[in-house]
Structure formats: structure tokens, C-alpha cells
């Protein structure tokens, strides 16, 4: 009823190609935008910002980057964490070398470094496929984390080997470092994430995106119809690593405030991969849904027993937490292997034809 499409006629090709051919989709997006830009920031507490809103956005961005590579171009990568690390360390070095630089510019630049590293580690994809490639990306994962640990120039030779985000401000407002307020950080992240998302939507539905999808579905066939495999695969690695690198820079500068090499180790890669897969491969929307689930779930599971007044020790809660997340992942894979995005698509479909079943 809410989603009745009857009466919405397309009278031009442009209208048919619009991002939201159904008017209700645009309205829904509008509501979400109002929530994200106005309602949440007004209502959120510091804890909500730091434990839910900011991480959800950053993880969605990282998952979006991975999704371009895995979901659109079909190249499985287990090295996302390390590429986020490249972005973070690049941003840190840029800010040390040019202290006065605008942080937004530095974050934008740092993506190029991770894109370059991504392309370098993407080269084997021209010869290696499937799980072999996945393990090959693990080589990047382990090698880069080792490098973050050993190459002391990267962390300015600090004794602990960790990087600390200094106080940085833009237009007189503190955006990074301990004195920055959560709300400015949130808006900064939201702006970056929105921009990248718009760009990603347009890339993936354009010529390049179609090229990637052809490669994903069958690379030999794609090659036969004249798609340059090298260009397609490497461009996917570049775009994906760029976004992942930006997410990594945001991760450290706008959220964590400090980082040690271990932070970028394999659990982070898996976390991002979970988000992309639970959300839905080959979908932009899915990354957000997946991130909401994976980030918010442990936070909520932690709060529930306390809120109910059940005195369970925090370690038992943590054990149950890990079990629940593991169980839920399996359950989601069984119920809907194509992810939450497909789930939403089905609900939307049903709403459009409601009250008829087919």
C-alpha cells in the first residue's frame, strides 16, 4: 500500500535510468537522511556516537570498498585490514610531513597510497583465482602488518610503535584528536561516507561497473567479448583499495585516536568481510545494513543483561556474545545467503504488490 507504484509513468530514458525510479524509494532515503543528519546527532549521547554511529559509518565504508572488489568484480580479498592500515599510516605520515594540511585533503590523498599498494597486491589476480587468490591476499595482510611493526619511520620512531592522532582542526573546529567533540567527528565522517557512497553508486552502475560485473560472472567470457581483464581487475583493486584506505584513515583519525599495528590484523579483515557478506555482495545498501548488524549487535548484547538486571559476569556475557555472533552468522547465511540487501529487496517487492501474494 505504501509502496504502490501504479501511476508512476516514465516518459523519458533519463527518468527510466534515474537512481530511484520508484518515488517511495526516494522518500525513504529522504527520511533516512533526515535521521542521519538531524535526528541522530541531536539525540545521541557520547557513548552512542563512539560505540555505534561513528563505527557503523566507518565500517560501512570499509565494507563498501571490499564489496566493490569482491561483490562487483568477484575477487575475494582477505587483506582489507592491512589496506585500511596503509591508509591510516599514509594519513599519519602526510600529517607529520605537512602539519598545516587540511585533514580532509590528507585523508583524500592517503587513499591513493592504499590504492597503489592494492594494485601491487592485485597483480597476482591476473593469474591466480578463487581461494588461491584469497590466500594470496593474506600474504598482503601478514606482510603489511609486519611492515607496520618493523618500519619505524612509519610511526615516527615512537618507542611503543603506536601512532597517536594529534589535535587537528578545520575552520576552527576540532575534528581529530582528544579535544574534538563526537558530534563534529560524526558530521565529518558522515560527509565523507556520503560523498564516497554517491561516487560508488555511480561507478558501479556505469560502464566500469558493468565491466566488473562481467568479469565477476565469467572472466574468460568477458575477455572474449572484448573486456580488457587486466584493466578491469586492476581498476577494481585500485578503486576498492582507495575506499578502504580512506576508511582506514577515518578509522584511526576520526574514531580511535591511536593505533598499533596489531589493530589492522586479520580479525579486522574478517570483520569487514562479514559485514559485506551479511549485508549482501554486489550491493551498496547491504554494507550499511551489515555494518549496523555487526557493530550494533555486540553493543546491544552487552547492554541487555545489565538492562534486565541479570547479574551475569561480564566474561560470561562476552562468551555468550561471541557464540551468538557466530551462530547468527551461520543462521543468516542459511536463511538468506545473498544478504540483508536481498532481504530488503524481497520485503520491498512484497510491499509493492501487496495485498496480492504474486
Amino acid at each position, binding site marked *: 500500500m505504501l509502496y504502490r507504484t501504479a501511476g508512476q509513468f516514465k516518459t523519458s530514458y533519463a527518468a527510466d535510468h534515474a537512481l530511484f525510479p520508484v518515488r517511495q524509494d526516494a522518500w525513504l532515503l529522504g527520511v533516512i537522511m533526515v535521521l542521519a543528519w538531524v535526528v541522530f546527532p541531536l539525540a545521541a549521547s557520547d557513548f552512542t556516537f563512539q560505540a555505534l554511529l561513528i563505527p557503523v559509518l566507518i565500517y560501512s565504508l570499509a565494507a563498501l570498498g571490499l564489496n566493490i572488489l569482491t561483490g562487483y568484480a568477484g575477487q575475494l580479498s582477505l587483506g582489507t585490514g592491512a589496506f585500511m592500515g596503509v591508509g591510516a599510516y599514509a594519513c599519519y605520515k602526510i600529517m607529520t610531513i605537512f602539519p598545516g594540511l587540511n585533514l580532509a585533503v590528507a585523508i583524500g590523498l592517503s587513499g591513493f597510497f592504499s590504492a597503489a599498494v592494492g594494485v601491487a597486491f592485485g597483480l597476482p589476480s591476473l593469474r591466480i583465482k578463487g581461494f588461491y587468490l584469497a590466500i594470496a591476499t593474506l600474504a598482503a595482510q601478514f606482510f603489511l602488518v609486519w611492515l607496520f611493526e618493523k618500519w619505524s619511520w612509519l610511526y615516527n620512531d615512537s618507542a611503543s610503535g603506536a601512532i597517536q592522532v594529534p589535535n587537528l582542526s578545520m575552520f576552527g573546529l576540532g575534528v581529530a584528536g582528544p579535544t574534538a567533540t563526537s558530534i563534529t567527528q560524526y558530521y565529518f565522517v558522515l560527509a565523507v561516507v556520503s560523498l564516497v557512497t554517491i561516487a560508488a553508486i555511480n561507478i558501479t552502475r556505469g560502464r566500469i561497473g558493468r565491466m566488473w560485473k562481467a568479469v565477476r560472472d565469467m572472466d574468460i567470457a568477458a575477455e572474449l567479448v572484448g573486456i580488457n581483464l587486466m584493466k578491469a581487475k586492476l581498476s577494481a583493486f585500485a578503486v576498492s583499495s582507495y575506499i578502504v584506505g580512506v576508511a582506514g584513515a577515518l578509522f584511526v583519525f576520526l574514531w*580511535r585516536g591511536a593505533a598499533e599495528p596489531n589493530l589492522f590484523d586479520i580479525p579486522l579483515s574478517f570483520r569487514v568481510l562479514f559485514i559485506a557478506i551479511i549485508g549482501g555482495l554486489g550491493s551498496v545498501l547491504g554494507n550499511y545494513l551489515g555494518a549496523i548488524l555487526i557493530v550494533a549487535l555486540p553493543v546491544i548484547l552487552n547492554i541487555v543483561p545489565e538492562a534486565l538486571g541479570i547479574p551475569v559476569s561480564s566474561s560470561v556475557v562476552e562468551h555468550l556474545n561471541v557464540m551468538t555472533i557466530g551462530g547468527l552468522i551461520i543462521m543468516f547465511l542459511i536463511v538468506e545467503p545473498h544478504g540483508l540487501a536481498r532481504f530488503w529487496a524481497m520485503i520491498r517487492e512484497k510491499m509493492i504488490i501487496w495485498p496480492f501474494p504474486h
Partner: protein
Amino acid sequence: MKKLLSTTILSATFAVGMLAAAPAFAEDVLHIPNLSYRTGPFAGTGIPLMNGQRDYMTMLNERDGGVNGVKLSYEECETGYNTEKGVECYEKTKGEGIVTQPWSTGITLQVLPKSNVDKRAILAPGYGFSPMADGKTFQWAFNPPSSYWDGAQMLLSYVSGGNLDSLKGKKIALIHLDHPYGKEPIPLLEALAAKHGFTFMAIPVGLKEMQNQSAQWLQIRRENPDFVFMWGWGAMNAGAVNEAVKTKFPMEKFLGIWWSGHDGDMASAGAAAKGYRAISWNVPVNDAPVMADIKNYVADAGKSDTPADQAGWVFYQRGIAISMFLVEAVKAAQANFNTKTVDAEQVRWGLENLKIDEAKLKELGMGGMVVPFQTSCSNHTGHGGAWIIEWDGAKFNKVSDQLQADRAAIEPLEAAKAKEYADANAPWPMQECK
């Protein structure tokens, strides 16, 4: 397991019953959060420490009804030694909690800059960032009673018989976890090596290689250092001791920092590791009055998770000592501000004016359990020194008099690193000290 389950169910039903009545019992409570880790790869070392901390707090509540009539509410937030979870816990507990106990060098580094803004003290006893001793720079951070650099310097002076110049031409290796914690002593050891003419080499053990250290010990065999120091944690300690036994490295040349002197880690090597020593700022005193009180009020009442045979562990009793530091800080703050329910800023004052001397320890029933020390505005560590403890095949025994670090050798580096940190994080608030 069965016991755990039944207590959980029992307490759950009880709590549901109590839920409606709960607000009626509102009373003065001090919230003491602890970012614990009873899960993950380091749980083995975390559990006895957390148990000790909790049992001391429970004992005070049971015996004295809290501190000067205010109940202590000890609340754990599980991090699994994961910095991401740690920051989440910090955000969650910073509202009510009167202190932050981050329990990992990684988490300490994350919350250190935030402590200035949130005005909540960090208590990191015997860990964290060594330059935190500089109270002028790090006004919200405390790492009593000894820092890692104190520990490294004391180890050197112990093995050299007090004269570091006698180490000239010798070779000292540091086997350490490749993590901020393990790297902590390296700058000091490097500086002292240059000054006193000994060779220093760092041998890192990756987090994934903690249980697979044969390459590191082959390197030690090849280099044949005169002494090996260890900055290990969790599963790494047991792995290293086992490998040392295997490569027949003489135990009298192998010494660990206080986090590597854990009874649980030594169990698998057992008698073969006899003679392994560690430096420690606490030693178990099983007949101390405080231990008897904990047994009476906590263990015998079924309120402790610690098996009876683990009550004599170095780490369990270290947990007790750490809770004591905090409670003494609360007491000092209560006396100074003349209020029962102290807030986070007042607890900071208490930590800064902590005076744990022999008489105080006697009074608390903890004589000889922990080194005496005193903090001040500019000295947030107290530099109480430490003892050497030796593994006799079944337990650790104290084998030395109390050692003191040669502060003159450490202070210049400490000041330089503190300044470096403050400069890198400018504008960094400093505090004036008289």
C-alpha cells in the same frame, strides 16, 4: 561449569525478583570499573589478576561495609585485550566510574589523551607508558609502584651486581612480545647499552608466534647472550620457558619482568624451569592477615572464583595489591575533601597523594606483600622498586632484598620522551607542581 550455571540461574531468578524493589535500596556507592580480560589469548594471565582485584573489594564490603561506610561496586567490562573493545568499555564506564583501569598498554595509549578531556584518572599499576611517571605532563595517569624502565634498570643492576660498567663487552638479549607493551623497555636498554658498553639485542615474538618460538630460541642459541630478559605476556611466557628448557639455556641467565613471573605459566615446564627468576613488586605472603580475611569473608563464603590452590599465586596477590592502591587513594581523597562519595577528580588527587609505607602496609595486614612507595604531584609512579623472585619448581620465592632503580639513569630519557609525547599532541595540558 555446573556450579557456574546454577549460580547464574539462581542469581538471575533472584535478580528478577529483586528488580522492582531495587531502587528502594539506593545508597552511597562508588563505581569502580575494570576493563578486564577473562577471554582471549591473554586470559590465562588476566583471570588471576582480576580475581584478586575483585576479592579484595568484596572483602572490604563484607568486613567493613565498604570504605568509610561507602560500598564499593566493582564492575568488570570485558575487553579480551582487544583495544577496540577497550575503547568501547571506556566510553561505557566513564559516566559513573571514578577511575579507569585499562589493563593493556594498547588501551592505555588510546585512553591517555582522552583522560585530559574526560577528567578521569588512569590507574595502570606496573604497566602502560613508562614516561607516565612524569606527573607534570601526564596529570591523569598513574603507574605505581614501578615503571617498565625502572624494571629494566633494576634487572641490569641485579645481574651486574650493582655496577653496570661491569657489563662492558657482555651481550644482553631481550625476548619480547612484538606489541607496544613488549617494545616499552627498548629505548632505555639501548641508551644504557651505549652508555655502559654492553651489546643489546631485541628478539621480537609475534602475536601469532607466541606458541611457536623455536626460531627465537635458535637465535638465542646462536648469539649466546650472557643474559636474556623477557617481556612476555599470556601464552608467550609458557612458550618461552618451555623453549628455554628445550634449548638447555641456563635458567640462571634468564630473567623476566613482573608480567612474566606467573605461576600458571610455569606449570608445564615445572621442575625443569627451576632457577628461572623474575622481578616483581609484589610477593605472595600467604600468612598475611589480609589473606586470612579474604579467606574468611570471601572464599569461605563462596564468593570467590579462585581455586584454593591459586590463592598463593603471585598474580592473584598482585590483583589484591592493585585494588589496595585504589582503595587507599579513595581513602586519601575522602579524608582530604571531607566527603564520602568522592568523584573522579578527587580520586585523582588521592592517587597523587598515595603514601604506602611499611607502617601502612602493616595496618592493612599486607606487610611485605608489596613494595612501599609514595606518589606526588610530579612523580606518578612512586618508584618503589621491586624484589627478585625465583621459581623453585612449584612456586615463586623471594630471593633478593628490595631493589631500587637508579633514577638518575632513567630520568633524562623519561623527561625527553614525555616532552616528545606532549609536543606531538599539542596543545597538551601540563600541570604545575610545587
